[in-house]
Protein backbone atom coordinates (compact mmCIF):
# COMPACT_ATOMS: atom_id res chain seq x y z
CA UNK A 1 0.00 0.00 0.00
CA UNK A 2 1.28 3.46 -0.84
CA UNK A 3 2.17 5.64 2.16
CA UNK A 4 -0.49 8.19 1.20
CA UNK A 5 -3.20 5.54 1.15
CA UNK A 6 -2.03 4.15 4.46
CA UNK A 7 -2.41 7.63 6.02
CA UNK A 8 -5.88 8.01 4.51
CA UNK A 9 -6.96 4.67 5.94
CA UNK A 10 -5.64 5.58 9.37
CA UNK A 11 -7.52 8.87 9.18
CA UNK A 12 -10.79 7.07 8.30
CA UNK A 13 -10.31 4.77 11.24
CA UNK A 14 -9.71 7.67 13.58
CA UNK A 15 -12.86 9.36 12.24
CA UNK A 16 -14.78 6.16 12.88
CA UNK A 17 -13.59 6.17 16.48
CA UNK A 18 -14.49 9.84 16.97
CA UNK A 19 -17.98 9.24 15.53
CA UNK A 20 -18.61 6.02 17.47
CA UNK A 21 -21.31 6.42 20.09
CA UNK A 22 -20.62 2.99 21.53
CA UNK A 23 -17.35 2.17 23.23
CA UNK A 24 -18.13 -1.55 23.29
CA UNK A 25 -20.64 -3.59 21.28
CA UNK A 26 -20.55 -7.31 21.87
CA UNK A 27 -22.87 -10.11 20.96
CA UNK A 28 -22.71 -13.77 21.95
CA UNK A 29 -19.23 -13.68 23.48
CA UNK A 30 -18.12 -17.08 24.79
CA UNK A 31 -14.75 -17.93 26.27
CA UNK A 32 -13.12 -20.98 27.77
CA UNK A 33 -9.51 -21.40 28.75
CA UNK A 34 -8.19 -24.10 26.48
CA UNK A 35 -5.46 -26.45 27.48
CA UNK A 36 -2.81 -27.70 25.07
CA UNK A 37 -4.31 -31.16 25.41
CA UNK A 38 -7.93 -31.68 26.45
CA UNK A 39 -10.93 -29.41 26.79
CA UNK A 40 -11.10 -26.12 28.62
CA UNK A 41 -13.31 -24.53 31.25
CA UNK A 42 -16.11 -22.23 30.06
CA UNK A 43 -15.74 -18.89 31.84
CA UNK A 44 -17.99 -16.62 29.74
CA UNK A 45 -21.30 -17.71 28.27
CA UNK A 46 -23.14 -15.76 25.59
CA UNK A 47 -22.28 -12.25 26.77
CA UNK A 48 -24.11 -9.54 24.82
CA UNK A 49 -24.09 -5.89 25.74
CA UNK A 50 -23.59 -2.40 24.36
CA UNK A 51 -21.70 0.25 26.28
CA UNK A 52 -22.20 3.91 25.38
CA UNK A 53 -19.08 5.96 24.84
CA UNK A 54 -20.52 8.63 27.10
CA UNK A 55 -20.94 6.42 30.15
CA UNK A 56 -18.80 4.92 32.85
CA UNK A 57 -19.76 1.28 32.80
CA UNK A 58 -19.30 -1.10 35.71
CA UNK A 59 -18.81 -4.85 35.81
CA UNK A 60 -19.76 -6.36 39.13
CA UNK A 61 -19.74 -9.90 40.33
CA UNK A 62 -18.21 -12.30 42.81
CA UNK A 63 -14.72 -13.75 42.38
CA UNK A 64 -14.54 -16.08 39.40
CA UNK A 65 -17.58 -14.58 37.71
CA UNK A 66 -15.58 -13.65 34.58
CA UNK A 67 -15.04 -9.90 35.03
CA UNK A 68 -11.28 -9.96 34.38
CA UNK A 69 -11.71 -12.30 31.41
CA UNK A 70 -14.36 -10.02 29.90
CA UNK A 71 -12.19 -6.92 30.36
CA UNK A 72 -9.24 -8.80 28.85
CA UNK A 73 -11.37 -9.65 25.81
CA UNK A 74 -12.60 -6.06 25.47
CA UNK A 75 -8.99 -4.86 25.58
CA UNK A 76 -8.01 -7.40 22.86
CA UNK A 77 -5.43 -9.02 25.17
CA UNK A 78 -7.21 -12.33 24.60
CA UNK A 79 -9.76 -13.39 22.02
CA UNK A 80 -13.23 -14.88 22.49
CA UNK A 81 -14.04 -18.25 20.95
CA UNK A 82 -17.41 -17.10 19.71
CA UNK A 83 -19.25 -13.87 19.25
CA UNK A 84 -18.78 -10.49 17.67
CA UNK A 85 -16.99 -7.58 19.30
CA UNK A 86 -16.63 -3.98 18.20
CA UNK A 87 -14.53 -1.48 20.14
CA UNK A 88 -15.26 2.20 19.42
CA UNK A 89 -16.92 1.18 16.19
CA UNK A 90 -13.91 -0.87 15.04
CA UNK A 91 -13.95 -4.59 14.47
CA UNK A 92 -11.96 -6.14 17.33
CA UNK A 93 -10.52 -8.86 15.12
CA UNK A 94 -9.71 -6.92 11.97
CA UNK A 95 -8.73 -3.59 13.51
CA UNK A 96 -7.00 -4.84 16.65
CA UNK A 97 -3.76 -2.96 15.89
CA UNK A 98 -5.62 0.37 15.68
CA UNK A 99 -7.68 -0.43 18.77
CA UNK A 100 -4.56 -1.14 20.86
CA UNK A 101 -3.28 2.37 20.16
CA UNK A 102 -6.52 3.86 21.46
CA UNK A 103 -7.09 1.87 24.64
CA UNK A 104 -5.25 0.98 27.81
CA UNK A 105 -5.83 -1.10 30.90
CA UNK A 106 -5.01 -1.06 34.58
CA UNK A 107 -5.01 -4.48 36.19
CA UNK A 108 -6.43 -5.61 39.51
CA UNK A 109 -3.13 -7.11 40.66
CA UNK A 110 -0.63 -4.89 38.91
CA UNK A 111 2.71 -6.39 38.02
CA UNK A 112 5.63 -4.75 36.30
CA UNK A 113 9.28 -5.71 35.85
CA UNK A 114 10.48 -5.90 39.45
CA UNK A 115 13.79 -4.16 39.30
CA UNK A 116 12.67 -1.18 37.23
CA UNK A 117 11.82 1.95 39.19
CA UNK A 118 8.52 3.81 38.89
CA UNK A 119 10.01 6.23 36.38
CA UNK A 120 11.80 3.51 34.41
CA UNK A 121 8.64 1.43 34.18
CA UNK A 122 6.63 4.37 32.87
CA UNK A 123 9.41 5.19 30.44
CA UNK A 124 9.58 1.59 29.21
CA UNK A 125 5.85 1.34 28.58
CA UNK A 126 5.77 4.82 27.07
CA UNK A 127 8.37 3.63 24.57
CA UNK A 128 6.24 0.58 23.74
CA UNK A 129 3.45 3.01 22.84
CA UNK A 130 5.83 4.87 20.53
CA UNK A 131 6.37 7.95 22.70
CA UNK A 132 9.78 9.55 22.27
CA UNK A 133 11.94 12.53 23.09
CA UNK A 134 10.47 15.38 25.10
CA UNK A 135 6.91 14.00 24.68
CA UNK A 136 7.95 10.80 26.43
CA UNK A 137 9.73 12.68 29.23
CA UNK A 138 6.80 15.07 29.75
CA UNK A 139 4.15 12.33 29.66
CA UNK A 140 6.07 10.29 32.24
CA UNK A 141 6.42 13.33 34.52
CA UNK A 142 2.74 14.26 34.05
CA UNK A 143 1.62 10.80 35.16
CA UNK A 144 4.02 10.80 38.09
CA UNK A 145 2.47 14.09 39.21
CA UNK A 146 -1.14 13.07 38.49
CA UNK A 147 -0.84 9.94 40.62
CA UNK A 148 1.33 11.51 43.33
CA UNK A 149 4.26 9.20 42.67
CA UNK A 150 6.92 11.92 42.82
CA UNK A 151 8.66 10.80 45.98
CA UNK A 152 8.67 7.18 44.79
CA UNK A 153 9.92 7.83 41.27
CA UNK A 154 13.26 6.13 41.92
CA UNK A 155 11.87 3.28 43.98
CA UNK A 156 11.96 -0.16 42.40
CA UNK A 157 8.61 -1.82 41.66
CA UNK A 158 9.40 -4.71 44.02
CA UNK A 159 9.79 -2.23 46.92
CA UNK A 160 6.46 -0.45 46.36
CA UNK A 161 3.43 -1.00 48.62
CA UNK A 162 0.27 -2.48 47.11
CA UNK A 163 -1.30 0.95 46.89
CA UNK A 164 1.70 2.45 45.11
CA UNK A 165 1.74 -0.46 42.65
CA UNK A 166 -1.92 0.27 41.90
CA UNK A 167 -1.15 3.95 41.36
CA UNK A 168 1.70 3.04 39.01
CA UNK A 169 -0.68 0.79 37.09
CA UNK A 170 -3.16 3.64 36.69
CA UNK A 171 -0.37 5.99 35.62
CA UNK A 172 0.78 3.45 33.01
CA UNK A 173 -2.79 3.15 31.75
CA UNK A 174 -2.86 6.87 30.96
CA UNK A 175 0.49 7.01 29.10
CA UNK A 176 -0.98 6.83 25.60
CA UNK A 177 -3.92 9.18 26.38
CA UNK A 178 -6.42 6.39 25.71
CA UNK A 179 -9.89 7.02 24.26
CA UNK A 180 -11.17 3.99 26.14
CA UNK A 181 -9.85 2.94 29.52
CA UNK A 182 -10.36 -0.47 31.11
CA UNK A 183 -9.91 -0.50 34.86
CA UNK A 184 -9.92 -3.87 36.58
CA UNK A 185 -10.59 -3.15 40.25
CA UNK A 186 -8.77 0.18 40.14
CA UNK A 187 -8.83 0.96 43.87
CA UNK A 188 -7.95 -2.45 45.26
CA UNK A 189 -5.22 -1.98 47.85
CA UNK A 190 -5.51 1.80 48.02
CA UNK A 191 -6.16 3.59 51.30
CA UNK A 192 -9.52 5.43 51.59
CA UNK A 193 -7.98 8.81 50.78
CA UNK A 194 -6.22 7.57 47.64
CA UNK A 195 -9.29 5.52 46.66
CA UNK A 196 -11.43 8.64 46.73
CA UNK A 197 -8.79 10.62 44.82
CA UNK A 198 -8.62 7.86 42.22
CA UNK A 199 -12.41 7.82 41.82
CA UNK A 200 -12.46 11.58 41.41
CA UNK A 201 -9.62 11.29 38.91
CA UNK A 202 -11.55 8.66 36.94
CA UNK A 203 -14.56 11.00 36.88
CA UNK A 204 -12.35 13.90 35.79
CA UNK A 205 -10.68 11.87 33.02
CA UNK A 206 -14.12 10.80 31.82
CA UNK A 207 -15.81 14.19 31.97
CA UNK A 208 -12.95 16.52 31.02
CA UNK A 209 -11.01 14.39 28.55
CA UNK A 210 -13.97 12.45 27.17
CA UNK A 211 -12.37 9.10 27.93
CA UNK A 212 -14.82 6.19 27.98
CA UNK A 213 -14.37 3.99 31.04
CA UNK A 214 -15.23 0.36 31.68
CA UNK A 215 -14.37 -0.77 35.17
CA UNK A 216 -14.81 -3.77 37.38
CA UNK A 217 -14.98 -3.39 41.12
CA UNK A 218 -15.77 -5.16 44.35
CA UNK A 219 -16.55 -1.91 46.13
CA UNK A 220 -20.23 -1.11 45.85
CA UNK A 221 -19.89 2.54 46.92
CA UNK A 222 -17.38 2.92 44.09
CA UNK A 223 -19.79 1.45 41.55
CA UNK A 224 -22.60 3.61 42.92
CA UNK A 225 -20.46 6.74 42.77
CA UNK A 226 -18.92 6.20 39.34
CA UNK A 227 -21.07 3.98 37.15
CA UNK A 228 -23.89 5.11 34.93
CA UNK A 229 -24.81 1.49 34.28
CA UNK A 230 -23.79 -1.83 35.73
CA UNK A 231 -23.69 -5.38 34.43
CA UNK A 232 -23.76 -7.99 37.12
CA UNK A 233 -21.92 -11.19 36.23
CA UNK A 234 -22.37 -14.56 37.85
CA UNK A 235 -20.70 -17.77 36.66
CA UNK A 236 -19.83 -16.18 33.33
CA UNK A 237 -23.29 -14.82 32.55
CA UNK A 238 -24.88 -11.41 32.82
CA UNK A 239 -27.67 -11.78 35.36
CA UNK A 240 -28.60 -8.09 35.60
CA UNK A 241 -27.86 -4.99 33.54
CA UNK A 242 -29.19 -1.55 34.44
CA UNK A 243 -28.50 1.70 36.26
CA UNK A 244 -27.61 1.31 39.95
CA UNK A 245 -30.95 2.87 40.95
CA UNK A 246 -33.01 0.65 38.69
CA UNK A 247 -31.17 -2.44 39.89
CA UNK A 248 -32.12 -1.56 43.46
CA UNK A 249 -35.72 -0.78 42.54
CA UNK A 250 -36.39 -3.73 40.30
CA UNK A 251 -34.96 -6.42 42.52
CA UNK A 252 -37.56 -5.71 45.19
CA UNK A 253 -34.99 -5.87 47.92
CA UNK A 254 -37.07 -3.86 50.36
CA UNK A 255 -35.94 -1.43 53.00
CA UNK A 256 -34.14 -2.50 56.13
CA UNK A 257 -35.67 -1.39 59.45
CA UNK A 258 -33.37 -1.97 62.40
CA UNK A 259 -34.87 -1.70 65.88
CA UNK A 260 -32.80 -1.91 69.07
CA UNK A 261 -35.01 -2.59 72.09
CA UNK A 262 -35.16 -3.82 75.68
CA UNK A 263 -38.02 -5.98 76.98
CA UNK A 264 -40.38 -8.69 75.68
CA UNK A 265 -41.03 -9.01 71.97
CA UNK A 266 -42.86 -11.66 69.92
CA UNK A 267 -40.77 -11.99 66.80
CA UNK A 268 -43.23 -14.42 65.16
CA UNK A 269 -45.88 -11.67 65.06
CA UNK A 270 -43.50 -9.42 63.13
CA UNK A 271 -43.32 -11.97 60.36
CA UNK A 272 -47.11 -11.89 60.01
CA UNK A 273 -47.21 -8.17 59.21
CA UNK A 274 -48.11 -7.62 55.53
CA UNK A 275 -45.12 -6.50 53.48
CA UNK A 276 -42.51 -7.97 55.83
CA UNK A 277 -40.02 -9.95 53.74
CA UNK A 278 -37.79 -11.25 56.49
CA UNK A 279 -37.00 -10.81 60.18
CA UNK A 280 -33.72 -11.43 61.96
CA UNK A 281 -33.62 -10.87 65.71
CA UNK A 282 -30.60 -11.31 67.96
CA UNK A 283 -30.23 -10.07 71.57
CA UNK A 284 -32.31 -6.92 71.53
CA UNK A 285 -31.77 -6.09 67.88
CA UNK A 286 -34.35 -6.86 65.22
CA UNK A 287 -33.67 -6.38 61.54
CA UNK A 288 -36.84 -6.33 59.48
CA UNK A 289 -36.85 -6.15 55.70
CA UNK A 290 -40.08 -4.67 54.36
CA UNK A 291 -41.12 -3.68 50.88
CA UNK A 292 -42.81 -0.35 51.76
CA UNK A 293 -41.73 1.11 55.07
CA UNK A 294 -44.02 4.14 54.87
CA UNK A 295 -47.14 1.96 54.86
CA UNK A 296 -46.05 -0.71 57.29
CA UNK A 297 -43.77 1.00 59.77
CA UNK A 298 -46.64 1.99 62.05
CA UNK A 299 -47.84 -1.62 62.43
CA UNK A 300 -44.33 -2.81 63.19
CA UNK A 301 -43.71 -0.22 65.87
CA UNK A 302 -47.03 -1.10 67.56
CA UNK A 303 -45.76 -4.67 67.99
CA UNK A 304 -42.93 -3.28 70.07
CA UNK A 305 -45.41 -1.60 72.50
CA UNK A 306 -44.48 -3.88 75.40
CA UNK A 307 -40.79 -3.30 74.87
CA UNK A 308 -38.72 -0.18 75.27
CA UNK A 309 -37.38 1.00 71.88
CA UNK A 310 -33.84 2.37 72.23
CA UNK A 311 -33.17 3.21 68.62
CA UNK A 312 -34.80 2.78 65.22
CA UNK A 313 -33.24 3.26 61.78
CA UNK A 314 -34.41 2.75 58.21
CA UNK A 315 -31.96 2.00 55.44
CA UNK A 316 -32.72 1.91 51.75
CA UNK A 317 -31.21 -0.99 49.83
CA UNK A 318 -27.79 -0.26 48.37
CA UNK A 319 -25.65 -2.00 45.79
CA UNK A 320 -24.20 -4.19 48.50
CA UNK A 321 -27.68 -5.66 48.93
CA UNK A 322 -27.99 -6.01 45.16
CA UNK A 323 -24.64 -7.78 45.09
CA UNK A 324 -25.60 -10.17 47.86
CA UNK A 325 -28.96 -10.88 46.26
CA UNK A 326 -27.56 -11.49 42.79
CA UNK A 327 -24.53 -13.46 43.95
CA UNK A 328 -26.76 -16.08 45.62
Amino acid at each position, binding site marked *: MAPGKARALASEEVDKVIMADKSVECKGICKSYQRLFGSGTMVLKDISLDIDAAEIFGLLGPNGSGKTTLISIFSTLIYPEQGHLRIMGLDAKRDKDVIRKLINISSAKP*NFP*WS*LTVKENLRHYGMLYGLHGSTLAKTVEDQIDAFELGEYRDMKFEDLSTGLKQRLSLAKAMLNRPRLLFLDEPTTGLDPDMSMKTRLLIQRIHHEQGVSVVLSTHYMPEAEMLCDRIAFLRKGEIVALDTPQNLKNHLGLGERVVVRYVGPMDIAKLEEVPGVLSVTAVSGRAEIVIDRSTENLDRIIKLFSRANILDISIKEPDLEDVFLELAR
Partner: protein
Amino acid sequence: MSWQGELNKYLASAYKNWIISKRNVFTLFELFFWPMISLLSIGLLTRFLNVGPGMVSFLLVGAIALTILQVAQIDVAYVLLFDMWSKSIKNTFIAPIKSYHLVFGALLFGIVRGSVVFAILVIVSHYLFGFDFLRGGPLPVLIFLAGVFSVAAVIGITVCISILTFGQKADVAAWSLSGLILLVSGIYYPAEVLPPALQMLARAIPLTYFLEYYRSVFIPGPHNLALGAVLAALYLSVGLILFDRSIERARRTGILLRLSE
Protein backbone atom coordinates in the same frame (compact mmCIF):
# COMPACT_ATOMS: atom_id res chain seq x y z
CA MET B 1 3.66 7.29 13.80
CA SER B 2 7.00 9.05 13.36
CA TRP B 3 10.17 7.05 12.79
CA GLN B 4 11.40 8.05 16.25
CA GLY B 5 8.25 6.57 17.77
CA GLU B 6 8.66 3.38 15.75
CA LEU B 7 12.35 3.22 16.75
CA ASN B 8 11.42 3.56 20.42
CA LYS B 9 9.15 0.52 20.16
CA TYR B 10 12.29 -1.47 19.33
CA LEU B 11 14.45 0.27 21.91
CA ALA B 12 11.90 -0.36 24.68
CA SER B 13 13.00 -3.99 25.02
CA ALA B 14 16.69 -3.09 24.91
CA TYR B 15 16.05 -0.43 27.59
CA LYS B 16 14.24 -2.89 29.86
CA ASN B 17 16.88 -5.61 29.44
CA TRP B 18 19.67 -3.12 30.09
CA ILE B 19 18.12 -1.82 33.33
CA ILE B 20 17.40 -5.32 34.62
CA SER B 21 20.86 -6.56 33.68
CA LYS B 22 22.74 -3.71 35.31
CA ARG B 23 20.88 -4.31 38.60
CA ASN B 24 21.42 -8.07 38.56
CA VAL B 25 24.67 -9.34 40.06
CA PHE B 26 24.33 -12.55 38.06
CA THR B 27 24.86 -10.51 34.90
CA LEU B 28 28.53 -10.53 35.89
CA PHE B 29 28.41 -14.33 35.79
CA GLU B 30 26.87 -14.23 32.32
CA LEU B 31 29.36 -11.68 31.04
CA PHE B 32 32.57 -12.76 32.72
CA PHE B 33 32.43 -15.89 34.83
CA TRP B 34 30.91 -18.49 32.51
CA PRO B 35 32.64 -17.16 29.35
CA MET B 36 35.99 -17.29 31.13
CA ILE B 37 35.30 -20.78 32.50
CA SER B 38 34.42 -21.95 29.00
CA LEU B 39 37.47 -20.38 27.35
CA LEU B 40 39.96 -21.38 30.04
CA SER B 41 38.76 -25.00 30.25
CA ILE B 42 39.00 -25.49 26.49
CA GLY B 43 42.27 -23.57 26.26
CA LEU B 44 43.82 -25.66 29.03
CA LEU B 45 42.52 -28.84 27.39
CA THR B 46 44.43 -27.95 24.23
CA ARG B 47 47.59 -27.65 26.34
CA PHE B 48 46.97 -30.95 28.07
CA LEU B 49 46.40 -32.70 24.75
CA ASN B 50 49.41 -30.87 23.34
CA VAL B 51 47.60 -30.18 20.06
CA GLY B 52 49.01 -28.06 17.24
CA PRO B 53 48.07 -24.45 16.43
CA GLY B 54 45.43 -25.54 13.91
CA MET B 55 43.56 -27.60 16.48
CA VAL B 56 43.90 -24.84 19.09
CA SER B 57 42.22 -22.42 16.69
CA PHE B 58 39.52 -25.01 15.88
CA LEU B 59 38.59 -25.50 19.52
CA LEU B 60 38.89 -21.86 20.62
CA VAL B 61 36.78 -20.61 17.69
CA GLY B 62 34.13 -23.11 18.82
CA ALA B 63 34.37 -22.04 22.47
CA ILE B 64 34.12 -18.34 21.64
CA ALA B 65 31.23 -18.89 19.22
CA LEU B 66 29.27 -20.93 21.75
CA THR B 67 29.80 -18.38 24.49
CA ILE B 68 28.65 -15.33 22.55
CA LEU B 69 25.77 -17.36 21.13
CA GLN B 70 24.59 -18.20 24.66
CA VAL B 71 24.87 -14.58 25.83
CA ALA B 72 22.99 -13.14 22.85
CA GLN B 73 20.28 -15.83 22.70
CA ILE B 74 19.43 -15.46 26.37
CA ASP B 75 19.01 -11.72 25.85
CA VAL B 76 16.43 -12.34 23.14
CA ALA B 77 14.70 -14.90 25.37
CA TYR B 78 14.79 -12.46 28.30
CA VAL B 79 12.38 -10.20 26.43
CA LEU B 80 9.60 -12.60 27.45
CA LEU B 81 11.29 -14.34 30.39
CA PHE B 82 11.54 -11.13 32.44
CA ASP B 83 7.88 -10.36 31.71
CA MET B 84 6.85 -13.90 32.56
CA TRP B 85 8.81 -14.02 35.82
CA SER B 86 7.42 -10.65 36.91
CA LYS B 87 3.92 -11.59 35.68
CA SER B 88 3.74 -8.40 33.64
CA ILE B 89 3.36 -10.04 30.25
CA LYS B 90 -0.15 -8.62 29.70
CA ASN B 91 1.16 -5.06 29.91
CA THR B 92 3.49 -5.79 27.01
CA PHE B 93 0.90 -7.44 24.80
CA ILE B 94 -1.81 -4.85 25.44
CA ALA B 95 0.50 -2.34 23.74
CA PRO B 96 0.44 -1.84 19.96
CA ILE B 97 3.62 -3.79 19.22
CA LYS B 98 4.64 -6.68 16.99
CA SER B 99 6.96 -9.61 17.57
CA TYR B 100 9.75 -7.96 15.58
CA HIS B 101 9.78 -4.94 17.92
CA LEU B 102 10.47 -7.26 20.83
CA VAL B 103 12.96 -9.53 19.05
CA PHE B 104 15.12 -6.90 17.38
CA GLY B 105 15.10 -4.60 20.42
CA ALA B 106 16.27 -7.43 22.67
CA LEU B 107 18.73 -8.64 20.02
CA LEU B 108 20.26 -5.19 19.88
CA PHE B 109 21.11 -5.44 23.56
CA GLY B 110 22.25 -9.04 23.03
CA ILE B 111 24.62 -7.87 20.30
CA VAL B 112 26.09 -5.26 22.64
CA ARG B 113 26.58 -7.79 25.45
CA GLY B 114 27.79 -10.47 23.04
CA SER B 115 30.30 -8.03 21.56
CA VAL B 116 31.65 -7.17 25.02
CA VAL B 117 32.10 -10.88 25.78
CA PHE B 118 33.66 -11.41 22.36
CA ALA B 119 36.21 -8.64 22.96
CA ILE B 120 37.13 -10.04 26.36
CA LEU B 121 37.54 -13.57 25.05
CA VAL B 122 39.62 -12.45 22.06
CA ILE B 123 42.00 -10.55 24.35
CA VAL B 124 42.23 -13.33 26.94
CA SER B 125 42.74 -16.07 24.31
CA HIS B 126 45.51 -13.98 22.76
CA TYR B 127 47.42 -13.47 26.00
CA LEU B 128 46.88 -16.87 27.58
CA PHE B 129 46.94 -19.16 24.57
CA GLY B 130 48.63 -17.09 21.89
CA PHE B 131 45.57 -17.34 19.65
CA ASP B 132 45.02 -14.45 17.20
CA PHE B 133 41.28 -14.61 16.57
CA LEU B 134 41.36 -11.49 14.37
CA ARG B 135 43.95 -12.86 11.96
CA GLY B 136 41.52 -12.90 9.03
CA GLY B 137 40.77 -9.17 9.28
CA PRO B 138 37.59 -7.27 10.12
CA LEU B 139 35.30 -8.56 7.33
CA PRO B 140 35.46 -12.29 8.21
CA VAL B 141 35.02 -11.37 11.88
CA LEU B 142 31.95 -9.29 11.09
CA ILE B 143 30.46 -12.04 8.91
CA PHE B 144 31.15 -14.62 11.62
CA LEU B 145 29.57 -12.44 14.34
CA ALA B 146 26.55 -11.66 12.16
CA GLY B 147 26.06 -15.40 11.66
CA VAL B 148 26.34 -16.17 15.37
CA PHE B 149 23.97 -13.34 16.34
CA SER B 150 21.39 -14.37 13.76
CA VAL B 151 21.44 -17.95 15.10
CA ALA B 152 21.15 -16.50 18.62
CA ALA B 153 18.04 -14.59 17.51
CA VAL B 154 16.50 -17.78 16.10
CA ILE B 155 17.15 -19.68 19.36
CA GLY B 156 15.77 -16.78 21.42
CA ILE B 157 12.64 -16.67 19.27
CA THR B 158 12.22 -20.44 19.71
CA VAL B 159 12.35 -19.99 23.49
CA CYS B 160 9.71 -17.23 23.29
CA ILE B 161 7.46 -19.45 21.15
CA SER B 162 7.88 -22.30 23.67
CA ILE B 163 6.84 -20.03 26.55
CA LEU B 164 3.73 -18.83 24.74
CA THR B 165 2.82 -22.38 23.75
CA PHE B 166 3.65 -24.41 26.84
CA GLY B 167 3.59 -21.76 29.59
CA GLN B 168 5.96 -21.04 32.43
CA LYS B 169 7.66 -24.44 32.58
CA ALA B 170 9.05 -23.88 29.09
CA ASP B 171 11.67 -21.46 30.41
CA VAL B 172 13.99 -24.46 30.67
CA ALA B 173 14.26 -24.17 26.86
CA ALA B 174 16.22 -20.96 27.37
CA TRP B 175 19.22 -22.93 28.62
CA SER B 176 18.63 -26.25 26.82
CA LEU B 177 18.55 -25.25 23.18
CA SER B 178 22.13 -23.97 23.11
CA GLY B 179 23.13 -27.41 24.51
CA LEU B 180 21.58 -29.00 21.44
CA ILE B 181 23.51 -26.58 19.25
CA LEU B 182 26.70 -27.53 21.10
CA LEU B 183 26.07 -31.18 20.33
CA VAL B 184 25.23 -31.02 16.64
CA SER B 185 26.64 -27.89 15.01
CA GLY B 186 30.33 -28.68 15.14
CA ILE B 187 31.38 -26.51 18.07
CA TYR B 188 34.20 -28.77 19.31
CA TYR B 189 34.41 -31.30 16.49
CA PRO B 190 33.59 -31.28 12.78
CA ALA B 191 30.05 -32.19 11.81
CA GLU B 192 31.46 -35.10 9.79
CA VAL B 193 32.17 -37.12 12.94
CA LEU B 194 28.47 -37.17 13.85
CA PRO B 195 26.24 -40.15 13.01
CA PRO B 196 24.55 -39.69 9.58
CA ALA B 197 21.18 -38.62 11.03
CA LEU B 198 22.79 -35.97 13.22
CA GLN B 199 24.96 -34.84 10.31
CA MET B 200 21.75 -34.01 8.43
CA LEU B 201 20.61 -32.02 11.44
CA ALA B 202 24.00 -30.27 11.60
CA ARG B 203 23.66 -29.31 7.93
CA ALA B 204 20.32 -27.72 8.73
CA ILE B 205 21.85 -25.44 11.37
CA PRO B 206 23.40 -22.22 9.98
CA LEU B 207 26.00 -22.03 12.76
CA THR B 208 27.70 -25.12 11.30
CA TYR B 209 28.43 -23.16 8.10
CA PHE B 210 29.56 -20.00 9.88
CA LEU B 211 31.97 -22.04 12.01
CA GLU B 212 33.38 -23.79 8.93
CA TYR B 213 33.75 -20.42 7.22
CA TYR B 214 35.63 -18.79 10.06
CA ARG B 215 37.81 -21.85 10.74
CA SER B 216 38.87 -21.75 7.10
CA VAL B 217 40.73 -18.55 8.01
CA PHE B 218 43.04 -20.66 10.18
CA ILE B 219 42.81 -24.08 8.55
CA PRO B 220 42.07 -23.75 4.81
CA GLY B 221 39.15 -25.96 3.91
CA PRO B 222 35.79 -26.00 2.13
CA HIS B 223 32.84 -24.03 3.44
CA ASN B 224 29.43 -22.95 2.22
CA LEU B 225 28.91 -19.53 3.74
CA ALA B 226 26.13 -18.62 1.31
CA LEU B 227 24.00 -21.59 2.38
CA GLY B 228 24.55 -20.67 6.02
CA ALA B 229 23.46 -17.10 5.36
CA VAL B 230 20.37 -18.22 3.43
CA LEU B 231 19.40 -20.66 6.17
CA ALA B 232 19.89 -18.02 8.87
CA ALA B 233 17.74 -15.50 6.97
CA LEU B 234 15.10 -18.15 6.31
CA TYR B 235 14.93 -19.29 9.92
CA LEU B 236 14.80 -15.73 11.19
CA SER B 237 11.91 -14.90 8.85
CA VAL B 238 10.02 -18.11 9.64
CA GLY B 239 10.78 -17.62 13.34
CA LEU B 240 9.22 -14.16 13.34
CA ILE B 241 6.12 -15.44 11.53
CA LEU B 242 5.77 -18.33 13.97
CA PHE B 243 6.35 -15.98 16.92
CA ASP B 244 3.50 -13.78 15.67
CA ARG B 245 1.30 -16.85 15.28
CA SER B 246 2.17 -18.09 18.76
CA ILE B 247 1.18 -14.68 20.17
CA GLU B 248 -2.15 -14.92 18.36
CA ARG B 249 -2.60 -18.48 19.62
CA ALA B 250 -1.77 -17.37 23.18
CA ARG B 251 -4.50 -14.72 22.84
CA ARG B 252 -6.97 -17.38 21.69
CA THR B 253 -6.11 -19.90 24.43
CA GLY B 254 -5.92 -17.20 27.09
CA ILE B 255 -2.39 -18.18 28.12
CA LEU B 256 -1.36 -14.52 27.95
CA LEU B 257 -3.75 -13.80 30.81
CA ARG B 258 -2.74 -16.88 32.78
CA LEU B 259 0.96 -15.97 32.50
CA SER B 260 0.08 -12.64 34.15
CA GLU B 261 -1.67 -14.12 37.19
